[in-house]
């Protein structure tokens, strides 16, 4: 039984590598547009590793959705084409193609502890250029920005020092150089 095929019929042997991609999608900021995008991913069995969305051009009512996804090059091409088929979608750009994109994520990390753990947490936060944005006598909330793996690492280090919870924004990304998308 062939369980990996994306259609009902046995597919050609999967020779293509799975790749991680970050897509930037410019959409009309209208009701339901996010549901359309997410529904497309779930309905067609694509992965979403990270998703961020916010209005970016207020006057034109445009929002920018950043999706980190994965798949073979053929699947990635499908995802792009399917997204572009949605009526409120203006443009889809694969920011990872050509490796030119800048990706950042923000995380808020709450740590609870006393004595040495507290000092150690502050020291590490300093090394990671995380800022303290809330403090009590027994806790800190750190704000940290950077690539996802840097945040991963910071969270791992905080765990033994009294990590309470983490809130992450998901990836936002933009292309390098003078050109817009």
């Amino acid at each position, binding site marked *: 039984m062939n369980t990996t095929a994306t259609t009902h019929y046995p597919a050609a042997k999967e020779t293509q590598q799975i790749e991680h991609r970050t897509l930037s999608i410019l959409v009309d900021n209208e009701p339901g547009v996010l549901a359309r995008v997410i529904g497309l991913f779930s309905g067609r069995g694509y992965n979403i590793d990270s998703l961020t969305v916010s209005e970016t051009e207020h006057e034109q009512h445009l929002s920018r959705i950043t999706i980190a996804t994965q798949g073979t090059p053929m699947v990635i091409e499908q995802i792009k084409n399917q997204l572009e088929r949605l*009526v409120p979608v203006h443009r889809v750009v694969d920011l990872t193609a050509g490796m030119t994109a800048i990706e950042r994520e923000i995380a808020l990390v709450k740590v609870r502890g006393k004595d040495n753990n507290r000092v150690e947490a502050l020291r590490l936060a300093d090394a990671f250029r995380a800022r303290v944005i809330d403090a009590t006598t027994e806790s800190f909330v750190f704000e940290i920005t950077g690539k996802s793996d840097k945040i991963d690492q910071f969270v791992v280090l905080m765990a033994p020092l009294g990590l309470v919870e983490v809130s992450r924004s998901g990836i936002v990304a933009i292309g390098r150089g003078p050109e817009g998308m």
Partner: protein
Amino acid sequence: MQKEMTGAEMVIQALLDQGVEHIFGYPGGAVLPIYDALFQQDKLRHVLVRHEQGAVHAAEGYARSSGKVGAVLVTSGPGATNAVTGLTDALMDSIPIVVLTGQVPTHLIGNDAFQECDTVGITRPCTKHNYLVKNVNDLSRILHEAFYVAANGRPGPVVVDIPKDIQFAKGTYVGPKNIQHKTYQPKLKGDLDKVKAAVELMRHAKKPVFYTGGGIINSGKEASVLLRELVKLTGFPITSTLMGLGAYPAADPQWLGMLGMHGTYEANLTMHDCDVMICIGARFDDRITGRLDAFSPGSKKIHVDIDPSSINKNVHVDLAIVGDCAHVLEDMVRLWRAGSVTPDKKALAAWWKQIDEWRGKKSLAYKNSKEIIKPQYAIQRLYEFTKGLDAYITTEVGQHQMWAAQFYQFQEPRRWMTSGGLGTMGYGLPAAVGVQMAHPKSLVIDIAGEASVLMTMQEMSTAAQYDLPIKIFILNNQYMGMVRQWQELLHGGRYSHSYTESLPDFVKLAEAYHCVGMRCEKPGDLDAAIQEMIKVKKPVIFDCVVDQAENCFPMIPSGRAHNEMLLGDAGVSVEDAITEEGKVLV
């Protein structure tokens, strides 16, 4: 044009401005203001169906046969959910329709009000696009946009959900001329360099084949004319999907018949062995390709499609041209004529010799009988008596549908209405209602199975009410024939619930609907009965009692390749032909 009016009046005005003459619908609480506005005018004709699914299929038949956008009006809640099957059907087969649904008043949305459902949420994955109107001043723009989106690019269904308070509210109506869509502007013209490259590939082909689909029909009459010209110019063989039948005349010697699971031997073998495949307006569906890793392994593939997401979805192609079929075909014809290199005549002659050998297998042959009507024979006779007439054929889904595709010879586009992608049993009868509405003087026949047609049988009442003389030609084998066939092939002949024990008496049923009922049980009576059916000026249910055990061949068993077709008189056991892997496939 700008005018003050209520939302309900805007709906009527927008439909008229979009050229709609008929709307299929069913009233209910949340669309009463629109029905009131309908009542107070006489330009737009409303067709009252008996179930909302029927309204959508009727609009599909109307659209498919006329080339116009079909229009539907249903109420909120159950009205909208009943339309979902039709919407999905239209999405899969790229049929342009606009469905207007009533909605509970804006302030009640989200309160679980009576007959409330999340229509835009439910229909989001089964429409090309949908709208919830929240301000009456957006209504006319949204309606015009809906028609634009439904008809342009790859056509499809669009839902506009209109809350009841919006229908009552007064606002400014804006005519269609002032509306331009912000983002949705599909590319019509194919990239000329790519078309040139395609023509070059075609010129040097030794074993070419055209594989065309519903995109040719959707692209308009011109696309079929250009296709015929190109096929004649090149001398290449041509096959088509179920949805594309009629784009190329079936009587022509270059026509190979339909391809795919129940396509002809010659069409499938030609696809398998070709060296250049020119796919125009088709989408490499699993019913066409069979086993993907053995699909036409040695060919360069050219794919012309207006929808970029159809390209490289199932099959990787060598040359993709995004554009409208008619536009690309026009360029191809022009470039082919202008070229200096002549194709390899010798190679083409050898290719045709090979194809004629495959044709010699006579894959559609069946054993006729004097005692019992063979379903294939019934369709052949039906074709003989209707071929000279202005006839339109719809079908339900199953064996009868495949036999109709194999044995009814379509010579012109838009004459063949069938549920291809979704495979909706119950499509044919309401579709026939829609076709007859669009073509009141033509002969409209639904080639049906007795199981399918019972799913939407109530639309006979619609046909009677509007004097639509549709002919329901039922190939009655008392089985869900295709289910029975698969149970025979895959499940050891255990016919689990595929036999209908107590069918209605179709003759009496017809009479109950104020229609004409006929029954035919002997091959010798068939010709006279069909001729009589055609003469009757009322809706007819024709109960053609056929062989219960007949199977639909040829067949590519699931999980097999084009060159592993089963023919009707195959010596091998059919059961052995399907692998364990194949059994899990649909």
